[in-house]
Each structure stands twice: as structure tokens, then as C-alpha cells.
């Protein structure tokens, strides 16, 4: 997904000299082609994320469209105030690209787990909060960001992600993408864990339960489709992120704001601090982020109360 992002950005940057890529000294084997081909549009700010975000704001104030690249918590938590004050408050054209969503760096320990970033970014006004499910969504969304003024947060996974779309989906900024139709209930997932929603869909179908599956790349702006889906029937959210403050909370907030009583279950990582390491599949199991958990959530909503 990160390579698709960089390739897409390079393609756009060849045509648009205002595009700049900044890195906090990360992106080995990923950013080299961009750096070598367009050196005047590339800047390695060193291992200095606070300064990097300020520099990005200064460049954006001078007419650049800046993409800042780093891993998980480094371009978010480390420099949160710079994102809030220097970028978001000024509505600068800065996109913060965080690679390694969730447990993508599963062996590297808690410092490298991106589990609370969506919650934190959602709390800052004015930033689009985007989490593509696969490389195809990442490519389309990168091009979309360039057509929209203002700050964005782009949460990518890492490499080897499955593609969920048979062909390029038609969607606009803020839209959810329907992957499966279904009449009983909706599963809305963000990021790579769309895979769990699709697996749950198939297994539930075998049980005679017909669920709709949405990929929700935009937590902000949030598709009204997600809200509509949860009105009158149940909705399960799935995310590789803490159940505190991410997609589930965003949908819940939106439903409540419509004056509706939510019928919603959240599947995500626990609000507790993980104390485990492992490859993604192991970490998902360890955190309770499983197809079975999605199926259970669906069944609990379908049970007559």
C-alpha cells in the first residue's frame, strides 16, 4: 500500500511541481525513486517530527502541497500540537501520511502499533481522516486529496495487502464503498480489516443471514450511508484500532446527532494497552479482532431483545 501511495504521488508530482514529499528519515526502499527523480520536491527532515510538521506548514504557506511521510505514531502523537496549531488551525495543504496502521509492525512492539491515531485525529477540527482498505483505494484517495484544499490524515498499512475491488470503485470524498449488498444488517469496516467483514459476510450467508458490507475509508467527512444503514437496523463497525474513538465512535456520534437510537456493536482492538507482539494475523487474534467477533456482533444485534 505504501509503494502504491508513493508511485501515485510521484505520478502526480511529475505534473505538479507544487507537490512536495517530506520524510522523517523513513521510507527505505520506498521513497528513493521520488527523491532521485524530483529532488527539488523532496525533503528529508531528519528524525525530527515536530520540526517536520512546522516545516510542512511553512512550505504550504508558500504555495506547496505537502505530504509528510513517517510511521504510525511518529507523524501523529510526537507532533500532535504542530498538527493541531500549525497545520489544521491554518487549514494548510498538508497531508500527514502514517504508514503502519494497526499491527502492521506487529513484531516491533507497542511503540510501533498505530491503535489510537484515528481517535486523536478525529478530535482535531478540520482534518480529513482517511484509512483506505487496499492499495487501489489508496491510489484513488491520494489523487482525491490533491483535488481538495485543506489538511488530511492518510492512514496506510504497509505491504502485501489484498485488493478487495474487482475494478476501480466509483466514489467521492466522504463516500463509503459498498462491497456487498445485504438486507439484514450492515458491517462497516475501515482499512485492511475489511477482509474480516467479507469473511463474516460469506459465513453469515451460509447461516441464512444477509449482511451488507461497506468499506469506509473516510472517517471524516463521514458518509451519510453509514448513518442511514444503522437507522432502523443494526450496524457492526470493524477497525484495526482501539474501540475508543475510531470508526465505531465516529458512526455512533453521527447516528446520535441524527436523533436516532443506535443499534451498533464495535469490533476493534481493546481499549487496554497490548502487551504482545507477532505477525498481523496473530495480533488480530490476540486482540480479539476476528471474523468470529464480527459474526458474534452481528448475531447479538439480530437476536430479539
Amino acid at each position, binding site marked *: 500500500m505504501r509503494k502504491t501511495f508513493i508511485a501515485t504521488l510521484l505520478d502526480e508530482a511529475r505534473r505538479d511541481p507544487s507537490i512536495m514529499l517530506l520524510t522523517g528519515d523513513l521510507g527505505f526502499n520506498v521513497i528513493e525513486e521520488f527523491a532521485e527523480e524530483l529532488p*527539488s520536491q523532496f*525533503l528529508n*527532515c*531528519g528524525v*525530527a517530527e*515536530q*520540526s*517536520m*510538521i*512546522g*516545516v*510542512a*506548514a*511553512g*512550505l*504550504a*504557506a*508558500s*504555495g*506547496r502541497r505537502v505530504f509528510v511521510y513517517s510511521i504510525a505514531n511518529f507523524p501523529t502523537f510526537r507532533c500532535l*500540537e*504542530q498538527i493541531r*496549531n*500549525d497545520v489544521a*488551525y*491554518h487549514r494548510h495543504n498538508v497531508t500527514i501520511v502514517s504508514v503502519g496502521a494497526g499491527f502492521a509492525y506487529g513484531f516491533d512492539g507497542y511503540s510501533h502499533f498505530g491503535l489510537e491515531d484515528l481517535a486523536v485525529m478525529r478530535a482535531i477540527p478540520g482534518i480529513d481522516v482517511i484509512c483506505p482498505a487496499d492499495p487501489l483505494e489508496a491510489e484513488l484517495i491520494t489523487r482525491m486529496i490533491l483535488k481538495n484544499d485543506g489538511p488530511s490524515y492518510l492512514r496506510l498499512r504497509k505491504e502485501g495487502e489484498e485488493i478487495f475491488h474487482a475494478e476501480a470503485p466509483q466514489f467521492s470524498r466522504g463516500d463509503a464503498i459498498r462491497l456487498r449488498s445485504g438486507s439484514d444488517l450492515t458491517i462497516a469496516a475501515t482499512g485492511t480489516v475489511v477482509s474480516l467483514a467479507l469473511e463474516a459476510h460469506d459465513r453469515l450467508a451460509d447461516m441464512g443471514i444477509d449482511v451488507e458490507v461497506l468499506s469506509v475509508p473516510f472517517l471524516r467527512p463521514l458518509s451519510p450511508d453509514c448513518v442511514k444503514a444503522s437507522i432502523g437496523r443494526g450496524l457492526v463497525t470493524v477497525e484495526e484500532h482501539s474501540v475508543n474513538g475510531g470508526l465505531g465512535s465516529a458512526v455512533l456520534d453521527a447516528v446520535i446527532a441524527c436523533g436516532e437510537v443506535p443499534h451498533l456493536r464495535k469490533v476493534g482492538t481493546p481499549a487496554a494497552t497490548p502487551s504482545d507482539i507477532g505477525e498481523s494475523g496473530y495480533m488480530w487474534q490476540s486482540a480479539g479482532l476476528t471474523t468470529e467477533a464480527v459474526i458474534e456482533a452481528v448475531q447479538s444485534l439480530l437476536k430479539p431483545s
Partner: protein
Amino acid sequence: MSNSLELSNTVRRDVLRMTHSARKSHVGSSLCCVDIFAVLYHSIANIDPKEPEAEDRDRIVVSKGHCAAALYATLAHVGFFPVSKLAEYCTNGSPLFGHVTVGVPGVEFSTGSLGHGLPFAVGSAIAASRDDSDRRTFALLSDGELDEGSVWEAALLAAHHGLGGLTAIIDRNGLQSLTTTEATVALEPLAAKWEAFGWNVVTVDGHNHEELKRVLELPTTGPTCVIAETIKGKGVEFMENQVLWHYQPPSDDDLAKAIRALEHEAQQ
């Protein structure tokens, strides 16, 4: 204003009136950088209040956002907006916030949390350099602000890229929030630190307009740090070098006494 000295005296009186009527803090931190603003806006920076968004304008980034009163008064007196607007400083619904905030004509960047201005200025200077533009970027920092690590991150980057268009001005009044900088987290030898980071360093009397003009006009290769030695509360004798005036707004009596002294000085 016919000259920068007249401007600074006028701005000092406005700073006192603004902090007095708003009953807000940071009068001392505002008074100490008035001369730096007067020289920058009156004599040095290529800035036209009639064209505040001109692409080739010099950029002045005020990182010590708590000196908003001094900045706003300077901007008003050099023509960015009517001087009468200063009466709205820190009143309900006013655009003149207590810390430097965009939306006020002439303000380039919102600050108030320390350590944000220099990285932004470095970004601005890199853009100028890559555009082959002669425009300059000035960043005014407080000395207490140098405790922030982000300042030194940006200092490294600026030197690495040899940003000749960048000038950082340190308002070196020696006092910070609770006591002196040296009793808090010692900064000295400060010039040696900036030199070691690869910057040109000049130390000047931050209240001497001729000295300030001379060093700020200097063409440079690589970034320059001007350590402007200042006195917190400068121009009002009973406020000078007192931490108290970091926080306390002037009373009616304080104001009358201070204004009398400044009027007397203006007539000299």
C-alpha cells in the same frame, strides 16, 4: 511614522494602554521586543501593508506569540489596519487575540505555544530558496522558548540547507516565566550553541535601532541568528527586569506613570 524610534515610542504607549484596558498579561514581554519590531517593519522587511499577500514579500514569523500587543500595535502603526482597532485587543469577539493569531492583517502565522515559529520559518525559507526568490524570512523567538527541542531540530535543518534567507532573532531578555533563564535551564554560552549548530551569530543591543538595522541588513550565506540583548519591560523603569510584569497588567496609576515617562522620552 517618520522614523523607527518614533514608532517604538508610540507602540510602547499603545502596549501599555492595551494591556491596561484588557487587564491582560505579557506587558513586559511585549515592551522588550518593540524596538526589534520597529526596525523590522519600518526599516528592514520588504513588506507593503497595501499588498499583505504579495508573493515576494518578506515573511516575519513571531514565534513568541505572547507579545501580541506589541505586534498588533506595530502592524497598526505601519498601516496594516486602523490604529483605532487596537482598542479591541482581548475584548469579547475581537480578532485581536491574546496570542499572535492570523486573521489580523500582516500576521503570517498563529503562535502562542512556544517552539513552533522557527520550523515554520525554515519551511518558508526552503520554499524561497527552491523558488530562487530573494525574499527573506525573519523569526522572532524568546530566549525561554529555546528550552523547546523543536527549535533545535529546526536549527539543524536550516544549517544543513544553508538557508541564507533565514534570520532568527532571539529576544534575549534573560527572564522567563518564573525566574532568569540561567536559573531555570541555563542557555549560556548561547552564541556558541548557535555557532556549533552552523549558524552565523551576531550579538547586538536589542534596543539600539542603528545596531539592529546594521545586522539585519547584512547579506549572509547560511542562516543567521541575531541575539538581541533586551530588557524585559524596556522603557518603563519600574517594569524593567521584573518577572512580575510577565503576568501583571498595569493599574490606572501604573499606566499614567508609564505614559508620562514615555511622553517625556518622546520629547527628548
